[in-house]
């Protein structure tokens, strides 16, 4: 029954629709008005759908914009990284240039004309007993054992052994190192030995009489009394003092040059003329010197070694008898 009724209704509606279409085909005025009214009625639904579709489209476009912005950001980040790397490299070149200029200026001074510029290629420090570096100049460049090594205008060490293309530099802070030094202000002398009791940048100045006026920050320079190192080269700064005995101090000296701030060095023959290269002048308390701030010493402010001075490290002055 229901099926038959449905079929009947379908047929009726179909006939009505066909009649409607036929009427529209004949352009009957009433059907035109009906069409217009019908379209007006349903138009709001379509407008809503169009609005929703437009919103969805906007969302899609915004998504594309976001994706595009993300890709653009990625490209910009890569560019920034690349430029930062280039910038860092340029800054590094500036620093290297400055250091090399300092080297060149040093080579222009008397006694440094035979100096060889070398680059530190390896840190050979190992354990508590060794503070050394390897540089890329050797026998083929005229370097010989015993040549002194200067970096940033300060004493770094001396050539210990070498091959044709490299040299091993024993640093001032090496436990086996010994340098005849002098307190820059009060001029008392002593032997600076490397050590392994403190930080690797520290050396010790022993048997300094307690009547000497020593303060943290005072500069220590080479005395030249060992006949190895030229006098007046900056070696380091006083960082600590402790009683060695009732009569003497043991002074901890932080060396001015260490592996951490050595890149290019000057290898200088030890037979150069006695000269003076004092440390930065005068202030009793010297602030800690960060890498790159060590001032190149200026010659001509210290005395020549005494005639008949001992010829080797350790034989220069007996402990506790440092000359004023």
């Amino acid at each position, binding site marked *: 029954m229901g099926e038959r009724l449905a079929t009947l209704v379908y047929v009726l509606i179909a006939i009505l629709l066909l009649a409607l279409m036929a009427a529209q085909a004949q352009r009957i005025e009433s059907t035109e008005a009906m069409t217009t009214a019908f379209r007006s009625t349903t*138009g709001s639904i379509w407008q809503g759908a169009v609005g929703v579709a437009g919103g969805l489209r906007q969302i899609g476009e915004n998504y594309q914009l976001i994706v595009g912005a993300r890709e653009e950001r990625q490209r910009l980040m890569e560019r920034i990284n690349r430029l930062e790397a280039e910038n860092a490299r340029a800054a590094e070149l500036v620093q290297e240039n400055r250091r090399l200029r300092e080297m060149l200026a040093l080579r222009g001074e008397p006694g440094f004309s035979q100096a060889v510029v070398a680059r530190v290629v390896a840190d050979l420090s190992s354990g508590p007993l060794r503070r050394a570096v390897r540089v890329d100049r050797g026998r083929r460049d005229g370097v010989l054992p015993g040549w002194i090594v200067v970096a940033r205008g300060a004493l770094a060490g001396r050539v210990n052994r070498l091959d044709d293309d490299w040299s091993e530099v024993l640093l001032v802070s090496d436990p086996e190192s010994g340098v005849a030094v002098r307190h820059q202000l009060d001029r008392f002398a002593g032997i600076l030995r490397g050590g392994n009791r403190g930080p690797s940048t520290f050396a010790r100045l022993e048997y300094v009489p307690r009547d000497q006026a020593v303060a943290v920050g005072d500069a220590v320079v080479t005395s030249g009394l060992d006949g190895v190192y030229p006098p007046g080269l900056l070696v380091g700064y006083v960082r600590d003092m402790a009683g060695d005995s009732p009569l003497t101090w043991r002074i901890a000296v932080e060396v001015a040059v260490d592996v951490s701030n050595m890149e290019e060095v000057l290898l200088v023959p030890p037979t150069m003329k006695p000269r003076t290269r004092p440390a930065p002048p005068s202030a009793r308390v010297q602030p800690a010197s960060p890498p790159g701030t060590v001032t190149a010493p200026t010659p001509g402010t210290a005395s020549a070694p005494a005639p008949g001075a001992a010829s080797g490290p350790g034989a220069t002055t007996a402990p506790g008898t440092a000359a004023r």
Partner: protein
Amino acid sequence: MTPLRVLLLALLAVVLKALLALVPQVGWLSDPLLAVSVLAALPGRRWAAMFTGLVLGGFEDAMFGPWLGLHAFSQMTIAFTLSIIASKVDMLQPFPATLAMTVAAFADWGIQIGLAALFNRTADVVPGPFLWLAAVAANTIVGILFYRLVARRGSLA
């Protein structure tokens, strides 16, 4: 399907139709409202199929049809016929449903072209065979999407 689900599907189809209208050249080929009419016919309920086809076709006439009654007649006829078939054969399975979508898409354009010829009207859907086939393919795809949407929710019957 309940009338509410049919209504929701119809609204979704209208929005999809509006979205497809934004796609140049090919957007007009597909007819999501026809897919809803077919889905309404698949359970085999003639009244539901008939009125769904009538209403959605009438809406299409109001919006896109060259004259009133064209889509309404076409979709009502297709949906009603499919509902008769579905009352005898299980059309809810994927393959019969897909086949129904394809046939319906083909028949829709055929009926419209036939009516245009009957009333000496130049319908805006007088296609070449390739375009016709493209429309059939597009409507089949849209129909499958709607079918999967409804079938996954288990609300087809």
